[in-house]
């Protein structure tokens, strides 16, 4: 379990907006200290605002509206499911059968009589971007278009067209063909791969034959949203119907919170239907709460905790019937409701308990052997170093003059120094010596770590490598160390058989054998290798495979 390192999306919360949206005056400090209990990480704090990171599994946290809805719950200002009020509208979008192979689904909603300032627009745009990246999987699965409704003449048709089809895209003055947009516009170049493999592309066209959107790439200039826009159309196109409705639900709740009145848009066409955005019913057994959290509380406390998490809950026999608003796409089943109970109850109110251990602990026997090997090396006067297993070709092969034919590489590494899995530790030790030429000699170092080989699919072996660097270093000195570690460490006798290896001086190197089998190499490092590593002092070393000995 390690936290995700992928960059989490960020939402900016302005305190004056939050106060207004909360509907009650709450001290700034209280708001700030409540945020982490919603799972939000505070990234930056300023006088008038705060930036928080949220996990993409909570797409409803992509605006300050969504965060305020949850804050109202845990602060006890408003409880239960926020009602989504959608008036039945008369406008129609017809999905043509031709989109079936490219991007089959469309859903939409109208948001009416709203007022938008710059911050509202900014919140909506960042929500759209976050949803594109999260639920939308970088627009592959879902993309969202927001339009100025007053520029649109219904009914709309969602269909495919040839790539010579033209219209004026957003951020442009001139009409462009679809091909030109994909080749020249920034979003076109970024997302054109999503339309690879289909000659025709999806567009939404109104009854005046104006193209209003080219999903998942770009909207038209015609329907651009500005602070003057009062009525909006939100359309969501997708390759997955459920994901389309997820995104539409999140956007609908946010726009309602922003003061818009919602009106439904009828969807016609094969495999498509008008979205309901209804809350889902789910049963929760109070025993699951008790067994999971270790919290023995009455059903009424559970109900209140769920309501503080902005769900509805009522007792139904021995069960609790929960109503989950459509935007909570992260809730799969009862165990997720248990977490909602914990959050509503307050994690800070859960008192840690310590379970008794029923068995004695123990280290793995490999670890025990390696600890012994390490302490023996230290007893012999060698200091431990630690290098990476994922390393660079230069150190491992080029400078060390080693054969790279069995190399295992990783795809698309962001770093030159971390491209291949090491098949030997000794080059890394020589690199350590080369980075310490200004330090006092003698320098005697060792490392125990994993080496990787191509097998079925990969063989991982534990190796021990050691190196000694000083003016009087010799093959004999390092062979004494080898004999000693194998005898005192592993109680095995070793023989060496003269051999050849470009890493070492010819005639001053040998294979290391235990019971007639080669387990490593030993020698004085070749002057050319020392030169490559800019070392001006002689070095001797060995490397052995411990797997098999332990």
């Amino acid at each position, binding site marked *: *379990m390690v936290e995700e390192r992928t960059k989490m999306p960020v939402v900016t919360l302005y305190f004056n907006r939050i106060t207004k949206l909360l509907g009650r005056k709450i001290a700034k400090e209280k708001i700030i200290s409540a945020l982490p209990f919603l799972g939000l990480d505070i990234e930056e704090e300023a006088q008038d605002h705060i930036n928080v990171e949220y996990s993409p599994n909570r797409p409803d946290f992509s605006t300050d509206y969504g965060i305020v809805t949850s804050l109202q719950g845990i602060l006890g200002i408003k409880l239960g499911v926020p009602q989504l009020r959608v008036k039945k509208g008369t406008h129609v979008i017809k999905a043509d059968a031709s989109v079936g192979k490219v991007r089959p689904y469309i859903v939409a909603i109208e948001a009416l009589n709203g007022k938008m300032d710059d911050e509202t627009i900014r919140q909506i745009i960042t929500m759209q971007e976050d949803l594109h990246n999260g639920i939308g999987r970088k627009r592959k699965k879902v993309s969202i278009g927001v339009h100025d409704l007053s520029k649109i003449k219904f009914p709309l048709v969602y269909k495919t067209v040839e790539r010579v089809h033209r219209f004026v895209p957003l951020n442009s003055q001139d009409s462009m063909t679809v091909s030109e947009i994909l080749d020249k516009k920034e979003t076109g170049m970024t997302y054109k791969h999503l339309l690879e493999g289909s000659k025709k592309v999806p567009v939404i066209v109104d009854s005046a034959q104006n193209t209003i959107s080219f999903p998942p790439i770009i909207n038209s200039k015609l329907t651009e949203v500005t602070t003057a826009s009062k009525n909006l159309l939100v359309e969501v196109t997708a390759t997955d119907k459920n994901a389309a409705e997820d995104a539409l639900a999140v956007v609908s709740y946010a726009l309602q919170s922003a003061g818009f009145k919602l009106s439904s848009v009828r969807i016609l066409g094969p495999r498509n239907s008008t979205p309901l955005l209804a809350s889902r019913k789910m049963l929760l057994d109070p025993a699951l709460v008790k067994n999971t959290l270790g919290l023995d509380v009455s059903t009424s406390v559970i109900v209140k905790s769920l309501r503080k998490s902005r769900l509805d809950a009522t007792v139904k026999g021995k069960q609790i019937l929960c109503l989950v608003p459509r935007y909570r796409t992260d809730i799969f089943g009862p*165990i997720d409701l248990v977490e909602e109970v*914990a959050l509503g109850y307050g994690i800070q109110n859960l008192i840690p308990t310590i379970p008794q251990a029923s068995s004695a602990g123990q280290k793995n026997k490999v670890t025990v052997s390696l600890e012994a090997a390490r302490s023996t090396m230290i007893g012999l006067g060698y200091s431990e170093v*630690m290098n990476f297993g994922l390393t660079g070709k230069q150190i491992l092969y080029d400078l060390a003059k080693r054969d790279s034919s069995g190399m295992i590489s990783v795809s698309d590494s962001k770093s030159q120094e*971390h491209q291949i899995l090491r098949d030997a530790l000794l080059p890394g030790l020589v690199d350590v010596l080369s980075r310490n030429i200004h330090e006092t000699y003698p*320098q005697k170092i060792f490392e125990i770590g994993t080496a990787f080989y191509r097998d079925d699919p990969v063989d991982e072996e534990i190796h021990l490598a050691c190196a000694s660097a000083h003016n009087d270093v010799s093959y004999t000195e390092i062979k004494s160390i080898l004999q000693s570690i194998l005898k005192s460490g592993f109680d095995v006798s070793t023989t060496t058989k003269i051999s050849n290896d470009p890493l070492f001086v010819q005639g001053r190197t040998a294979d290391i054998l235990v019971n007639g089998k080669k387990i490593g190499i030993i020698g004085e490092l070749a002057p050319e290798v020392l030169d490559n590593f800019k070392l001006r002092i002689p070095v001797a070393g060995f490397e052995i495979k411990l797997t098999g000995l332990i």
Partner: protein
Amino acid sequence: MEAPAPVVFAARSHPLADVIDEVREIFVSLGFAELVGNSTQSSFWNFDALFIPQDHPAREMQDTFYLKDVSAKSVATPKQIKQVDAAHKNGWHYDWRLDAAKRMVLRTHTTCVTIRALADQEYDEARLFSIGRVFRNEKVSYKHLVEFNQVEGVVVGKNVTLRDLMGLQMEFYRKMGIKKAKFWPTFFPYTEPSLQSMIYNERLGKWVELFGMGIFRPEVTKPLGIKNPVLAWGGGIERIAMLKYGLDDVRELYNNKLGWLRSVPKCQ
């Protein structure tokens, strides 16, 4: 008699290895048995078995190291594969693909080792831990390495709870000499509920994030035949080492500067 003598340096273990040893000793003292496993893993155990969908952003090449031209021939038992396939179909509504599960990765967490042991051994009760290298494809910085050490502990038991999980953290931290800790909710794809712990660092005078934890989701345990609840927690060891040695740049732990290695007091 009074002039300083020439300086000699004691051969010693690596300071990061000392922290790893310390963490290991604490787990053993708390009754945990150690697991070891490979750094190279199939996507099946690193991701699929943990209910991480195949189109999840964390599985993209820009975050995870995939081995070039290396695939696992077999990844799990036919039953395990069938059940995990079904869990993904039911939970995420997509066509799960075995060939994607066969792609080999450098493990992004040691949870792949834990989950495999739990699936193969079918423990009713157990306390297990593992320590090992994990990998993330990202730019190296003062905060992040591409390869680091992770520790992970799990407790399997009929009656174990989230409060027990929190209690085990407190016990662990007490043994590390950390007095103040608190818990916040967080998200992991494979645990529910999920928490993160914050510990108070006296030197920095602030709260810092330490371990992530949670209870394995039923979508993870059920398909693999794990019957009892599993508490799991873990995190990076370098972070603990940085706090212990007062480092602000994580790269220093792997620079192998003899000047530093020779100067860090062994007894602290």
